[in-house]
């Protein structure tokens, strides 16, 4: 019986095999999705053995009710096959995708698929089919003997990688996600603060204490930094790796590394503090969930960093506007002021007021930790200095405080998005893109669309922290090896996305902006630099639509002549080139942007509507 089953069913598989090869790139997402369902229904309705019969039955039904199928459906079996395979492979790893090819009966398959297409092409059908498919395959594994599985797997051969993610594979992924979350939570943490607050040194020392940096390397850094006469920079060298950063003693670009605490896996982003590198800091912060704001407690230094012109305020405002909700204030360099409680309280009071009243952090989400990056006091080990122990009770170390942070809910059920923050080549693995998965998830073998070039590519490998992974979720910092696309089509700022719901590219947007403390008012025609994720692009404020009440959001004035400081408004912004943007209502994290002008951050904004886009439709079909 199984033998017969496979014989009869195989023809369909051949169709699936042959057609997509001839036209591998041309697929239409909606149709593919629609077609996938019906074929999936096939196995679900009966056990594997019965599949054939069912197919035959379908076949006849189809022939009666559907007109001859146009060339389009002929591609569909491919999709269906691919989809099936995905699931079946996952469940029965024995079955290799590359097995014998079988004879064909093209017409039959076409008819079947076409007919189904007509029958149930709605969403409900798809979902049902998805779960049915899964159970069907499981059944296969239980009921069918070796031969049956093999043959049915053959029939579902992987033809092309699935274009649209089926619900079935998604279910799997959800399970995987919860499993992974069983042990340690992932947290993206950015370190911000005024220049020379000791961000890199603090984090370098923390990494050293946690064992991420071995003694030998550290010793080397100590020796080398001493040679340059900058021995106090030794710990900063852990994160500041380029020659220029080391000789100048200033972080210039975001350094990324990873460490583990008892409860968390933390991706650390060490942002530069110098005001000229705020674009880099924005890039880092847009990828972060939480922040550590480092404060230099030294007399005079805290004041310069905090007063007008210092980066403490700007960084804090930027972090809040970019969606960072929780912040730990690390009051650093406490050793230079003899661990004075008075000073500590003064700083916490001033900052606490600023962070909660002006920057808009919730009081419960702001915590303070006194520490010293250079001596390593109160980082991962409880404080030992008597001056600090005397008044700092109960003592909470920085690491303990990090453990207390709550990771945000990640939008893994949304379509896949990844904003490319780096493109580089690596020996042996072709070319890689790096970035944070903004939403959804990605697996090796997935097809993705690269916007705004509108090119398709296949994900070859997914690496998290240089280790290959089977799947990466929203919030993960990943490196992805791509194939099937030329490197020139992928730039920093490109977006990899799910082909079934590609991202929007925009040249003109309507946005709600909150204006900071600015020196000159914003008029129409005001040139700005538009910072979004990891890109900055020149843009012009084209129209001022309305001025809003800052707290209620009501329209105060329509078509204002200019926008003054600390106001809120709806404006239209025109970008020099098209960028991939998302609406704030769809993707919170991906709908935020910052506007800067003349080296100052002038406004934070939320994308409300894409007014104009130059998306190349043909790239998708």
């Amino acid at each position, binding site marked *: 019986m199984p033998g017969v089953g496979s014989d009869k069913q195989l023809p369909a598989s051949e169709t699936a095999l042959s057609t997509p090869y001839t036209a591998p790139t041309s697929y239409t997402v909606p149709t593919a999705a629609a077609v996938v369902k019906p074929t999936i229904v096939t196995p679900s309705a009966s056990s594997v053995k019965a599949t054939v019969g069912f197919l035959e039955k379908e076949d006849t039904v189809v022939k009666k009710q559907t007109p001859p199928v146009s060339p389009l459906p002929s591609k569909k079996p491919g999709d269906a096959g691919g989809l099936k395979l995905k699931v079946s492979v996952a469940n029965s790893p024995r079955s290799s995708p590359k097995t014998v090819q079988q004879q064909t009966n093209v017409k039959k398959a076409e008819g079947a698929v076409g007919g189904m297409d007509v029958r149930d092409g709605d969403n409900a059908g798809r979902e049902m089919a998805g779960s049915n498919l899964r159970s069907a395959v499981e059944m296969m594994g239980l009921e069918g003997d070796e031969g049956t599985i093999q043959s049915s797997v053959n029939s579902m051969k992987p033809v092309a990688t699935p274009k649209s993610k089926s619900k079935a594979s998604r279910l799997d992924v959800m399970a995987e996600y919860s499993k992974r979350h069983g042990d340690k939570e992932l947290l993206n943490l950015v370190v911000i603060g005024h220049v020379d607050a000791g961000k890199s040194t603090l984090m370098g020392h923390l990494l050293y204490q946690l064992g991420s940096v071995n003694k030998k390397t550290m010793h080397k850094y100590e020796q080398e930094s001493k040679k340059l006469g900058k021995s106090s920079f030794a710990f900063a060298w852990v994160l500041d*790796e*380029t*020659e*220029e*950063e080391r000789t*100048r003693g200033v972080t*210039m*670009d*975001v*350094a*990324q*590394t990873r460490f583990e605490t008892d409860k968390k896996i933390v991706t650390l982003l060490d942002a530069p503090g*110098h005001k*000229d*590198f705020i*674009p880099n800091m924005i890039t880092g912060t847009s990828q972060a969930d939480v922040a550590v704001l480092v404060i230099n407690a030294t007399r005079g230094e805290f004041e310069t960093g905090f007063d007008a012109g210092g980066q403490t305020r700007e960084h804090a405002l930027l972090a809040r506007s970019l969606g960072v909700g929780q912040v730990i204030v690390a009051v650093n360099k406490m050793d230079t002021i003899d661990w004075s409680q008075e000073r500590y309280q003064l700083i916490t009071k001033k900052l606490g007021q600023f962070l909660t009243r002006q920057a808009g952090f919730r009081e419960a989400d702001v915590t303070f930790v006194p520490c010293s990056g250079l001596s390593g006091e109160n980082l991962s080990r409880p404080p030992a200095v008597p001056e600090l122990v005397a008044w700092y009770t109960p003592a909470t170390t920085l690491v303990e405080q990090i453990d207390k942070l709550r990771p945000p809910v990640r939008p893994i059920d949304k379509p896949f998005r990844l904003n490319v*923050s*780096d*493109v*580089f*080549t*690596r020996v042996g693995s072709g070319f890689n893109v*790096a970035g944070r998965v903004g939403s959804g998830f990605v697996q090796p073998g997935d097809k993705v669309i690269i916007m705004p070039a509108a090119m398709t590519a296949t994900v070859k490998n997914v690496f998290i922290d240089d280790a290959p992974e089977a799947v990466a979720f929203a919030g993960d910092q990943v490196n992805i090896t791509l194939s099937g696309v030329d490197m020139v089509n992928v*730039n*920093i700022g490109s977006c990899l996305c799910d082909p079934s719901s590609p991202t929007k590219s925009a040249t003109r947007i309507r946005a709600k902006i909150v204006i900071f403390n600015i*020196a*000159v*008012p914003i*008029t*129409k*025609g*005001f*040139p700005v*630099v538009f910072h979004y994720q990891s890109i*900055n692009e*020149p843009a*012009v404020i*084209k*129209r001022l639509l309305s001025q809003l009440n800052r707290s209620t959001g009501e329209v105060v004035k*329509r*078509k204002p*002549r*200019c926008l*003054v400081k600390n106001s809120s408004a709806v404006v239209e912004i025109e970008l020099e080139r098209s960028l991939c943007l998302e609406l704030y209502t769809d993707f919170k994290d991906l709908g935020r942007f910052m506007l*800067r*002008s*003349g*080296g*100052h951050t002038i406004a934070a904004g939320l994308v409300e509507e894409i007014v104009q886009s130059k998306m190349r439709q043909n790239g998708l079909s």
Partner: protein
Amino acid sequence: MKLLQRDMDKTNSGSVTLVPEESEDMWHAYNLVAVGDTIRSTTIRKVQTESATGSVNVSKVRTTLTVQVEGIDFDTQACVLRVSGRNISENQYVKMGAYHTVILEMNRQFTLNKQEWDSITLERIDQACDPAQHADLVAIVMQEGIAHLCLITPSMTLVRAKIETSIPRKRKGLCDQHTKGLHRFYNQIIQAFQRHVNFDIVKCVLIASPGFVKDHFTDYLFAEAMKMDDKTIIENKSKFVLVHSSSGFKHSLKEVLADPVITARLSDTKAAGEVKALDDFYTMLQTDPDRAYYGVKHCERAAENQAIEILLVSDELFRSQDISQRKRYVSLVDSVRENGGDVRIFSSLHVSGEQLGQLSGVAAILRFPMPEEEEEEDENDSDDD
């Protein structure tokens, strides 16, 4: 530009004969020529002659033609002005009414005839014929991965090269890729620099960037120049000036030109003066919004009340094809002048002029505050883009 002959009657109609001497003069010419004028110049025409036997012979002939202007086209990159229209003086090669495109050439005179020469155009001629030596300026505004090489003359900012490369970020263990990418980027700038910068004309080279990119690049440039034995760069080392800018985009030039260090070094300050005037306007908008107006309607109303102290106008408005529009702006300028106001005409090619153009093209700083009237709606929409 040289003015050879000026022949005008009482009503200000008549002709002017000019000789453009440098590429910037083409820009001035572009601002003078309007649709409806006639232009007479020597030009090259392809002429077809048919012999008695019917064989066709095509030859190129240099001839002098007079054309009634219908279309004007200015190429900013090559600084070439093309004027097209119908021939109005027949000669042996070209029939009456035949279309022809005159390409104005350097050092060849042309005669422009207008029905009416207004104050703006006359001023433009004076300005163009001012023999004062003006320094040409090269500015490289850059940030990691983006650089603009611009040539700045008194009335033009020309982007000669835009360099954009993606530089891999610093990454654990792969720092050399970052350095390599950076050097590739610098090399591209150096190439563009060698191609576009002529030190005979250029008096000053500005290198502007945020952070340390400018210092790093300058070091690299001189090191490379040594290696390549490029004498011109080494000899002109004193012409290089490093300035801070907030980004590598073109509009950052505004910040660069506003830098007092730079203004002191420039013999001609028109570009910098424009930046200053626009900044003043914005400051006024911040401190006393009732004394800063923009938009034609608002400015006209202010002019009626003799309130305008400084009027900022983009020269783009005077190139309007619509004669009544053009007249409207000219009369605005004239009325401001009559009342002792100061008029600054911005070049639309400069970054500041570009910004003013976006801001409806006209802006004014008033002598006394005039409360804003809450009436007109949708007025701004018409002059959007």
